[in-house]
């Protein structure tokens, strides 16, 4: 089965026709972990076992029964492996291995385990730390907007405190590890990635108030810019940084960046499309009105018509009938358009991989692309 996947993983593109059969996500991940030498779910374990975070973990228990988002974030770490736990780190490790040893100095070849330099492993961990820090920082609540149904004020304040502290702790650890890499270009890249991520989350925030169901009037190109910041920049720049650590050429660095960028764009599109491609009609998933299919739908339909559809779905009680809205979107061109866009990015990611020599690691990276562009 793995051999078959390897053969298929070489050259196949995604446009038109049926994409090659992609393995289930969990299989892709576990095969990839074997390639990089150990289960990546143990990355950052060292950090998680620190006194400070154990302290936080104990305190977070007090939040059980409250409505603070930190609890969900914490639960997500444990239970939600479908949310691609540690996926970014895994990709950084794979691309490090796929690029192979440094062509620069021979002395560089030491310190390699399973074909990956220890500095690159450290970078993978740093990427995960940063991603996690922002998952945590996303879960802060605005005290001024709380209502009595949200529970006691002091619980929310306490949750905020824990969220800020633990996020800061993870970021500080990331900064310290970055400094230890002794490479100023890498620090520059990753620092700028953090800045991008903040801006991306900032845009997310501005649109997340579901109360005001009117969406922003953005076109797909603005959507892409914003999603690049919030979902792609970190991985893209980490991939590039991994290449810099092994002193690979500027071309290879750029290809790694392109892979990271396009693969994560595909991933986001894939995730946005889930409510629209799933067959089961029992579970109506709420979706963001600024998801890709909705944004594309608006582009085809025109803003006025779209707003009208939203109002119709809102009905009298101002409660959104997501099923109705979903159907309206499915009836238009938004969904197919988003699927095409997803595959387009997938192809660009695969094209970037062409610059790397064929290997298990490269095949695994291709398999990840197949998995996030599969819609059946």
């Amino acid at each position: 089965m793995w051999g078959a996947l390897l053969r298929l993983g070489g050259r196949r593109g995604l446009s038109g026709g049926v994409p090659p059969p992609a393995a289930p996500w969990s299989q892709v991940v576990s095969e990839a972990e074997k390639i990089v030498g150990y289960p990546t779910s143990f990355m950052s374990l060292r950090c998680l076992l620190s006194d400070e975070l154990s302290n936080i973990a104990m305190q977070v228990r007090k939040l059980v029964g409250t409505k603070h988002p930190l609890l969900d974030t914490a639960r997500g770490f444990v239970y939600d492996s479908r949310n691609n736990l540690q996926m970014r780190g895994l990709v950084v490790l794979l691309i490090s291995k796929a690029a192979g040893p440094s062509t620069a100095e021979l002395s560089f070849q030491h310190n390699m385990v399973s074909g990956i330099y220890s500095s690159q492993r450290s970078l993978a961990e740093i990427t995960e730390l940063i991603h996690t820090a922002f998952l945590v920082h996303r879960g802060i609540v605005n005290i001024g907007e709380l209502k009595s149904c949200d529970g006691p004020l002091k619980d929310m304040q306490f949750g905020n405190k824990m969220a800020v502290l633990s996020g800061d702790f993870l970021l500080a650890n990331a900064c310290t590890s970055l400094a230890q890499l002794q490479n100023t270009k890498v620090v520059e890249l990753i620092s700028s990635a953090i800045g991008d991520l903040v801006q991306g989350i900032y845009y997310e925030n501005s649109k997340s108030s579901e109360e005001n169901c009117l969406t922003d009037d953005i076109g797909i190109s603005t959507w892409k810019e914003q999603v690049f910041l919030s979902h792609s920049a970190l991985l893209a720049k980490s991939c590039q940084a991994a290449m810099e650590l092994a002193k690979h050429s500027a071309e290879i660095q750029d290809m790694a960046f392109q892979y990271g960028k396009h693969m994560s764009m595909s991933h986001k599109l894939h995730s946005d499309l889930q409510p629209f491609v799933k067959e089961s009609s029992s579970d109506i998933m709420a979706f963001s009105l600024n998801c890709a299919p909705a944004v594309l739908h608006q582009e085809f339909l025109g803003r006025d018509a779209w707003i009208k559809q939203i109002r119709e779905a809102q009905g009298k009680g101002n409660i959104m009938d997501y099923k109705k809205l979903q159907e309206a979107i499915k009836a238009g061109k938004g969904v197919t358009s988003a699927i095409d866009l997803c595959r387009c990015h997938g192809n660009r990611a695969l094209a970037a991989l062409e610059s790397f020599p064929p290997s298990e690691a490269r095949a695994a990276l291709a398999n990840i692309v197949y998995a996030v562009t599969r819609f059946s």
Partner: protein
Amino acid sequence: MALRWGWWWWRWRCGASARRAPPPPPLGSVPGPGSRPPPPALGGAMCHFPQRSSVLSFPKICNIFWRFHHTSTSQMCSCSKTVSDEKYQDPFQLGRKDLKNLYEDIKKELLVSTAELREMCEYYFDGKGKAFRPMIVVLMARACNIHHSNSREVQASQRSVAIIAEMIHTASLVHDDVIDDANSRRGKMTVNQIWGERKAVLAGDFILSAASLALARIGNTTIISVLTQVIEDLVRGEFLQLGSKENENERFAHYLEKTFKKTASLIANSCKAVSILGCPDPKVHEIAYQYGKNVGIAFQLIDDVLDFTSCADRLGKPAAADLKLGLATGPVLFACRQFPEMNAMIMRRFSKPGDVERARKYVLQSDGVQQTTYLAQRYCHEATREISKLRPSPEREALIQLTEMVLMRDK
């Protein structure tokens, strides 16, 4: 080392027996080259101060120090002035040129497309802060440059360090205000008060990332390591504040450690960073670091005192803030020696109604404020002693003046 002797001072004040006292601090020890002799009134007493055989004379020494402090804080200042042969200059004037465009330059680092995010990030860089930290950094840079090569010019990289230090400091302030649910700072509303906690946290993260970017651009991996240490220390300091110790002596050591991490580390490490950029001699780096560390601790101690003695208008933020946050600072810890009933309040972090008021009264009745102030003076002396090892210069004198300004500030 500064922490150790601070703790030692605490033990001595508690009348602890000399049996457990750690090795004596280097006060009154042989002065380094170019340093000034200690002020005459204290000279004799200081030599005896740390020795174990003087256990019996401790109360006497205590008396001398006590009276000395009460009668003549300003006298101490004039002692340093008369010994120095450099002209008296206001430190802020001296550093003014270098820092003139500090806030403008910081804003350039914060270029971001979203208007609101930029507004939030620039909120505290309005030029109304004390700019105390960048001032020290710039003066230290000059002092080290002169020491090494007689050049007074501040290098671009050293100036960057001043900018980076101020940005890191501000980022931590923004997060601290969310953690403490504060609603005013520097005489105006906090970022979280105006824009909400979610965005405030993001703004703090952005400022930090911009600082980190600027740091990388200096292109020096040693400097990156030195200043990154600050980021780690700031966070660990916050965590230290979460916990509390039962044992009184542990409590004080814990307090000093937290003070170092939250306040002094930034100043110490930025001083060290500019000294590394200006001079290759590791001894100079250590001097810069020790100066920064001691001044930083003194600064925080006085801050903790002002929380009791000043009123809200002057401070720009609410007073008795520390007590309300459940924090037992220097004055409280000293007061607890005289009023053991405070122990229970400290352990429950002043959470019962009326605790804050009661604690405040106890502190003001006790000698807690005076003790803490005195301890701050000792740290300032240590800072002065260290910096005096550098070649004389207007900047070196300014740094000494600065220690006195730390002691005399009222906001």
